[in-house]
């Protein structure tokens, strides 16, 4: 089953079984935000600590499917200790990787069951989705072949983005 293996790569299953940076940070000083996916009941809690222009620490809690929980774990490992500029860059790159498929959804209603459509004609800067920039996060690229699961993968990222925005608003 090549498709499923594309989705459930070993790195993803590993992060699902042994999530990194699990827990919550004391808030304050950390900032804590809850994210929900109302469709499936997935829940991710991101708490993060910004020191100067660095994301000094991040912890994840919540419950959900393997994709939402492993994506949160992969994200925490990728951003922890990074400069805020680097975190922003990763957020943009990850979002670009996930949005490749969304633009093709509208043309996707043929229902012929082939399920093997390729994406294309999307206005995304190819450098932005350079997988080398993503490291382990690239393991989530298989998710774009399963459009309804994209929301699972992006839940933690959107929650972190909200937490960062609120932190920035607090400090200005």
């Amino acid at each position, binding site marked *: 089953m090549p498709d499923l293996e594309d989705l459930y790569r070993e790195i993803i299953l590993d992060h699902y079984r042994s999530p990194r940076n699990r827990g919550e940070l004391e808030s304050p000083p950390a900032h804590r935000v809850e994210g929900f996916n109302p469709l*499936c009941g997935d829940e991710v809690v991101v708490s993060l600590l910004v020191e100067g222009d660095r994301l000094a620490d991040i912890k994840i809690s919540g419950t959900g499917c*393997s*994709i939402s929980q492993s994506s949160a774990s992969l994200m925490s490992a990728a951003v922890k200790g990074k400069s805020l500029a680097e975190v922003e860059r990763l957020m943009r790159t990850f979002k670009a990787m996930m949005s490749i498929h969304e633009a093709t959804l509208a043309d996707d209603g043929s229902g012929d*069951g082939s399920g093997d459509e390729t994406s294309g004609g999307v206005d995304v800067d190819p450098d932005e989705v350079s997988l080398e920039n993503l490291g382990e996060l690239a393991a989530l690229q298989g998710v774009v072949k399963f459009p309804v*699961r994209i929301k699972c993968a992006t839940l933690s990222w959107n929650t972190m983005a909200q937490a960062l925005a609120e932190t920035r608003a607090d400090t200005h």
Partner: protein
Amino acid sequence: MSEEQDFDVEVIRKDFPLLARTVHDRPIVYLDSAASSQMPRQVLSAMDRYYETTHANVHRGVYAIAEEATRLYEAARVKVGRFLHAPDPGHEIIFTKNATEAINLVAHAWGRQNLGPGDVVVLTEMEHHANIVPWLMLAQERSVELRYIPVDGQGRLDLSDLDRLLAGARLVGVSAMSNVLGTINPVARVAEAAHREGAVVMVDGAQAVPHLPVDVTTLGADFLAFSAHKAQGPTGLGVLWGRAEMLDGMPPFLGGGGMILDVRLDRFLAAEVPHRFEAGTPPIAEAVGLAAAVDYLSGLGMDRVRAHEKDLTAYALDALADRLAGDCTVFGPPAGDDRGGVLSLAYRDIHAHDLAQVLDQFGVCVRPGHHCAKPLMRKLGVPATARASLALYNDRHDVDVLIEGLEEAGRLFA
């Protein structure tokens, strides 16, 4: 298919074109009829025939096809009424958009006329959001008190405190069959107790009507709602049955064309029932399709549909318990007279979304999520379940493939 023939599921399957397709190179195993059922060729061709030969707006033109369309639409009303054993089928059936709109119609038209501050509406903890949210909206708007009949550990209604809960109730809303637990509720018993209190009984029949013989008079209901698309009919059409005395006393729901006797610049006179509740051009082809679906179901016999699904449910519950070595929890009562073919599963600690994703690779269609019953999911203590729901066209092979897929999910997430 004649009444005399045995219920042969392999023959029945051939009536459903969609069941012949493949998904990911495997024959489709459709186990999501509680969300929406598939249509037999008889329904599809009735709707095609209507559009190809008879389509016109109803209750307006005097030309031949307008009269034919009107006759077909009204004949569908009577046919659906008879299917539910309505005492006055041509008068008591209202066509709506879906079961949700049918319940909203009652909440708006009857509710706004009859409910005020402190009045009590009693629901059950296993209601679909469609039979909770319209009443919550009314409760917020005019301080109506909501109470809930609890669900016990086996997924049945706990009626031990029923009389106290019903004290002072004006309306009782109860599902005839749970869309999560498969529980077939003792509606007649609840209705009898409700009527002793002088309460009106609103039955959500969305899951029961396609799977059980339903007789609104023996249920003791005042209103019953269901959706065509869960009963081998098309989407876009719901049905509200209401007792004639109830409907006759109710003000309109939506306003517009078709629901009036007269309109002046400063007032209007509402039409008689049932047209009073059908503003605008109705779903005509869909009503024709539902009439064909009712013919199809009646031809099979609802008692035999139920017998088939009851047998298959027992097979599925046994097989899931035996072959998955106790790793699979199916919520709801054990197989029996009060258990319908809705199987909400938890398998090991694998999230419902992941189960459904793996099952999809086997061509198996199940629904992951909260099934529009979040209060019940909280009670069960799970964020989501994977729901496999059975219908008249499912067979033991479908259940076997479901188990094969669950085993693969178990290996993948081991």
